[in-house]
């Protein structure tokens, strides 16, 4: 499958490229932009597209995709839930939150629900330790979480549009 950006996103990418003294520096921002435009994952077609657009070897772009954990090499569910499991959150009950997510979603960490609505992940410290425990849902933080609140959040993800 070919991949292409809309004219508007092409202009956005041009503006990003202009911020740097060379094209390679635009590679990570370009991957972010394309990943978003591609339903949240970097397909082989996206890699080819970014490589051509920035005049880089595809292997270089591939190397970035495998190094950085936030480039998805497979299409995730419609929503992504990250449970912070690092120490400050662990001291405030992250394990319980994670177990609750696994049970309610019926998947293990890394898995996606059968209806492809939610992918469950763990995160390392998300700079929110003073409001632990916390999870990130897509781009949003939910802090000082209780199980009841977590339940409501997961319900929304699972059953509402």
């Amino acid at each position, binding site marked *: 499958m070919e991949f292409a950006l809309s004219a508007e996103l092409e202009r956005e990418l041009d503006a990003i490229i202009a911020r740097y003294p060379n094209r390679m520096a*635009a590679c990570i*921002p370009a991957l972010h932009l394309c990943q978003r435009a591609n339903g949240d994952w970097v397909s082989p077609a996206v890699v080819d597209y970014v490589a051509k657009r920035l005049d880089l070897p595809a292997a270089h772009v591939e190397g970035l995709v495998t190094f950085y954990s936030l480039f998805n090499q497979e299409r995730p569910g419609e929503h992504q839930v990250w449970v912070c499991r690092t120490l400050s959150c662990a001291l405030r009950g992250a394990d319980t939150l994670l177990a609750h997510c696994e049970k309610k979603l019926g998947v293990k960490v890394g898995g996606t629900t059968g209806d492809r609505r939610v992918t469950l992940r763990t995160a390392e410290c998300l700079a929110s330790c003073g409001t632990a425990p916390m999870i990130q849902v897509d781009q949003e933080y939910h802090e000082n979480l209780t199980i009841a609140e977590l339940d409501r959040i997961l319900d929304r993800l699972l059953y509402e549009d």
Partner: protein
Amino acid sequence: MINRTSYLTRSFDVPEGYLLAAYERSGGYRSAQRALGMPREIIVDQVKKAHLRGRGGAGFDCGVKWSFMPKDDARPHYLVVNADEGEPGTFKDRAIMEKNPHAVIEGALIAAHAMGAHTVYIYVRDELHMAKARLEAAIAEARALGYVGERPFGRPWAIQVFVHSGAGAYICGEETALLNSLEGRRGEPRLKPPFPAQCGAFGDPTTVNNLETIAIIPTVIELGGDAFSRLSALHDFNDGGVRLFGVSGHVQRPGLYECAVGLTLRELIYDLGGGVLGDRKLLAVIPGGSSCPVLRADEMVHVLGDPRFAPYDGKSVLDLPLGVDTLRTIGGMLGTCCAIVLSDAADPVLALATLMHFYRHESCGQCTPCREGCGWIERILDKLVAGRASMEELDRLTEIASDITGNTICAFGDGAAQPVLSFVRKFRREFEDYVLTGGRSQTRTLVA
């Protein structure tokens, strides 16, 4: 006595305090306006007098770092602001970006001018979407008024400020890994020398500063370097000014508190943090991000031959003012100044296992001792927690960690070794219990 201040945090509780109008109402951008009319050397001199120790973890003197930038060098110069905030336990830079983004931009303008840079990149961790949005909006506001752009405050020295997003890798907080990442490469640390001031971003002179270091610069200019330094209880230790103190884990009121440098852990945990959660006893504190050695609550300060330490000698480590050199002298580390508190409900063995999972996951893999060592440590700890490790394996933990120390390209290796070395030594009995009882003797929980 606690000396709470509100230079960085005054906008935090103001509705829409992140907007330019609110920032200017409380005096914002006046320091930049003044500083951009001053010769470079004068600004660097003020920052040196401020004894501003880098807020990113290593505590290097900011003014001294700036003075390493070449003066008569035709190459482009860069300022790179490190907002990759990923050190476990640390949550201060995110708060500044979300609640006071204009302080970052004003500080960046002053710093860029002082170092002869036309371009500033703020490297923000990708997950911090709200922080990035607030910074972008603030840059747009500042650009609309001409503060950022071709002629900031009418001066013929263009300064552009850009937000650059990371993509999920703790190691990119290390400054040379960050530069590789900024250049569009894998975030693998570089060998030093050359140092960034000679050969940094795109091979050109570059200074990397932590975001909080940059955000406090307008205050340094506003007060003057010496007056800023004297706000600190550790002025005599060349550790000046005010900073954000974070506290998380087992305290009643976790959060961020801006105070003069020199606050004690007792003040942070009991007065500001409201004491230990659930009426438990304090077991231990990791003072500033997980890469710092853990301190036991019952540790004492013993420093001979330095008269500045006389008031603290023989006292609890909880009463030692928190500073870069005070903690270094007792064999600890201040790091990011965001403390993680463990009550006696927490099992130190599980705490270390949780941390070492992080380090194994985040090692970039370039150096064998770090890549393999972090993996071995994690596996031994897993066995220990499962009650299947031997005494020899327990001792191997210390050996492996010692072999990592000093044998790697970047300081991640030392950062991974420190928790192991300190936890195993200071909680030897708890670790041995896991071996002797097959893992059955502990509370086996982390939650208070």
